[in-house]
């Protein structure tokens, strides 16, 4: 029953299938673009950051990932905005704090909060644009075909792939222990006491998996050569290569300028 209802590519992915311009872009270009945007948000005034946010959001909608965007953004930014507002707008005492009956409010604090919020929103939207339009398998292939050591690609792939089996196993362990009398409904004290019974088998099994998987990788000649041959690697157009180079030069320059000024 564990796999029932899960999509064919696992449930841990945020990827939204599509064939938009951004989908078709080489994953490395998108990755470098994301890095550049991250570096850039630190240079821009709030208006600029808001522009980046709106632009990436629109690109996301164009790529067909609008729904995923809105859901994630609300889920993450909503609580974050409330939190920031309470801290900066209300709690922190500033020179311009206005006391109105039982509530106090600082316009400067609110402005500061807004600045942080748009920066996080811009970063989040840019990251969302990357993960919703890039299937991890494609990212792997792009890394592999550009001579990135296979070990690094493996570090990206395996957590994404193993998350679902791992949580399925955690559920199975919980079932097995409850069925032999472990009380998971009682007080928090009882639950703390029950914790080792859930954790130890999970860790033991994960270690055993690791050991076996290392043997499997050896058997498949993983890392026997410095590079892998990759089938169906994502297309890499000349302009994308130039774009990446330009962005990679721009990032340290921008950071340099920022530190200089």
């Amino acid at each position, binding site marked *: 029953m564990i796999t029932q209802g899960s999509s064919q590519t696992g449930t841990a992915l945020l990827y939204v299938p599509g064939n938009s311009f951004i989908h078709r872009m080489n994953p490395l270009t998108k990755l470098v673009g994301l890095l550049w945007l991250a570096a850039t948000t630190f240079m821009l005034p709030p208006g600029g950051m808001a522009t980046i946010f709106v632009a990436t959001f629109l690109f996301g909608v164009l790529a067909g990932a609008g729904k995923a965007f809105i859901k994630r953004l609300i889920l993450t930014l909503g609580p974050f905005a409330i939190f920031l507002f309470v801290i900066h707008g209300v709690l922190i005492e500033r020179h311009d704090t206005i006391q109105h009956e039982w509530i106090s409010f600082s316009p400067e604090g609110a402005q500061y909060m807004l600045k942080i919020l748009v920066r996080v929103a811009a970063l989040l939207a840019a990251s969302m644009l990357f993960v919703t339009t890039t299937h991890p398998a494609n990212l792997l292939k792009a890394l592999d075909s550009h001579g990135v050591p296979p070990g690094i690609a493996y570090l990206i792939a395996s957590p994404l792939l193993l998350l679902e089996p791992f949580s399925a196993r955690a559920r199975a362990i919980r079932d097995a222990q409850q069925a032999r009398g472990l009380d998971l409904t009682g007080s928090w004290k009882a639950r703390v006491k029950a914790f080792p019974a859930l954790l130890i088998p999970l860790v033991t099994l994960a270690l055993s998996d690791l050991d076996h998987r290392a043997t*499997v990788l050896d058997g498949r000649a*993983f890392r026997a050569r410095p590079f892998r*041959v990759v089938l169906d690697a994502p297309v890499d157009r000349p302009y994308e290569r130039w774009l990446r180079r330009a962005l990679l030069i721009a990032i340290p320059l921008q950071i340099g300028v920022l530190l200089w000024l």
Partner: protein
Amino acid sequence: MALIDIDNLVFGYGKAAPVLDGVSLSIAHGERIAILGGNGSGKTTLAQWIAGSLPRPGMTARSGTLHAEGKPWSDWDALKRAETIQFVGQIPSQQISGFAFTVYDELVFGPGNLGLEEAEIRKRADWALDTCNLRHLVERDPFTLSGGEQQRLSIAAALVMQPKALVLDEPTGNFDPESREKLLNQINQLPEDLTVILCDMALKPALAIARRFLLLDEGRIVADSDAQAILAHPRTLEVFGAPAVTEAALAIRAAGRWPEGKPLPLTYGQAEALFKEVSHAHG
């Protein structure tokens, strides 16, 4: 030159009693061999030695040697070893690389590491998809497959390396009878020159695949023979039980009613004919 030559191998974990206690064994190219043993007999450990996943640092032989095509595994480079022998372990989900998001990518993962030509990789993957009946699953995430499908995938992923030998550790342990039959047929259709080494504690799969049978008991090889002799070995019934039809014939033989020199039935197919002959002889 023999594919595998083991001479008086003694091996154990830590300070515990040896798991393999003086094993000597030679396996030729192209053999179909079953290593049979009960729980705790040491067969999985022997399989790991044969496949080259032992010795490892801190886990070395107490005495004795293993040579693969004339030299110890430790002298082989990882690439050549992967092209020589492949091991498929017991628990299907643990045989998946964790690198591939689809069945197809899982299949081409190994050959990609070998640095083969793209066309060659595709040819091998195509062949393995058909051989192991995986064509309809190419787009699936390997971790969402059933245990039986994962097992077929891990065998296919071993085959695409085009090894000289395939070591299978209880390959049908997780199967229902119907899927077991199918998998055994698929194994039987593998190329003749591929050496197949099957470790099992059920007789049925071994009888369906192997022509040579080793009986491993408490880390020692106590028999090395053909099917009939293995079934007649006194330890066999005790450790494995016999296929039901063989057990029935044995009970009749114990009552002194099975003709001298008449072979025992090993499969249902043989049983019907043999029992009819024996019944007829008794009128």
